[in-house]
């Protein structure tokens, strides 16, 4: 049902969808900001728009599928720490308002 709603209504055109609580509270883009809009774009096959909203969905979704399929990977020490570093780094970089990094922010 969530998928149908997400397909039917564009989060950026409808007030229906709530804004990211982290963004509402701090004004900063969290690593997950733009995921709803990116998923909406993905459901419509619009990869470019999905990338402009939150490019991380192209990593996150396959990663979650991979981790669910391969339990051993969850217990790899370096792997989980690498994910942690990537998430934090991504969250910091997408708030840097300078050209290459500004691509990471939802736009």
């Amino acid at each position, binding site marked *: 049902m969530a998928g149908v709603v997400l397909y039917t209504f564009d989060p950026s055109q409808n007030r229906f969808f709530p804004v990211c609580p982290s963004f509402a509270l701090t004004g900063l883009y969290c*690593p997950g900001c733009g*995921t709803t809009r990116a998923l909406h774009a993905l459901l419509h096959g619009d990869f470019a728009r999905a990338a402009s909203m939150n490019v991380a969905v192209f990593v996150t979704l396959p990663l979650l599928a991979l981790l669910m399929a391969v339990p051993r990977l969850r217990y790899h020490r370096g792997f989980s*720490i690498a*994910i942690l570093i990537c*998430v*934090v780094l991504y969250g910091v970089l997408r708030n840097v308002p300078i050209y290459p990094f500004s691509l990471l922010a939802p736009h």
Partner: protein
Amino acid sequence: MRYFLIRDQQSYGPYDVTELDAYLKSGNVAPGDRLESEDHTVRTTVADLLTFRVVPTQTPPASPAAPSEPIGFQQPSSAGSSASEYPPIGLGGSPTSGTPPGTAQYGSPQYGPPQQGTPQYGAPQYGRAPYGVGPQPQISNHLVLSIAVTALCCLPFGIAGIVYASQVNTKLALGDIPGAMHSSKQARLFSLIGVAISGGFWILYLGAIGLGALAR
């Protein structure tokens, strides 16, 4: 820590983990045999103790006169030696595997007979690798849930969850089972906080929209 082995209401030992491991492999001890720690605070079984042992426990050598021989029917220490000096393997007169550990030399025949209705415990019965070399016990680190909370709930609780998830892996690799279990609980706690806040928010949000639609 050393353990008394309890079988048929008789207590043997105490033995340390390395000895128990050796006896299990030689078939003198059964996986289902009950154990009680020397200070009587821990009760477990051979299988549980050895399965959850990750790093071999080295205990200091036993003092000749063990201070606590607390179980009344045990051989008094006036025999001049603690029970552990008489390993149950290859005791005179009872070379068969399956002999209960550490009794025959006391000359108390009621402790000694090898056949006590317990089957012979050969290694093939377990159907798995010897204890201690198999895979480590796996404690869920909730990594998938943590990543999902980070990406989908847009909340920092997911990041805390990933931190604790990686701690679980680090502690498991070091053999710190209690620490890993604690980190596992923390990882789940933070992820579930994220899920609860997000879910609660959505319920309130949809409820408010529904009420607004009704009032119109």
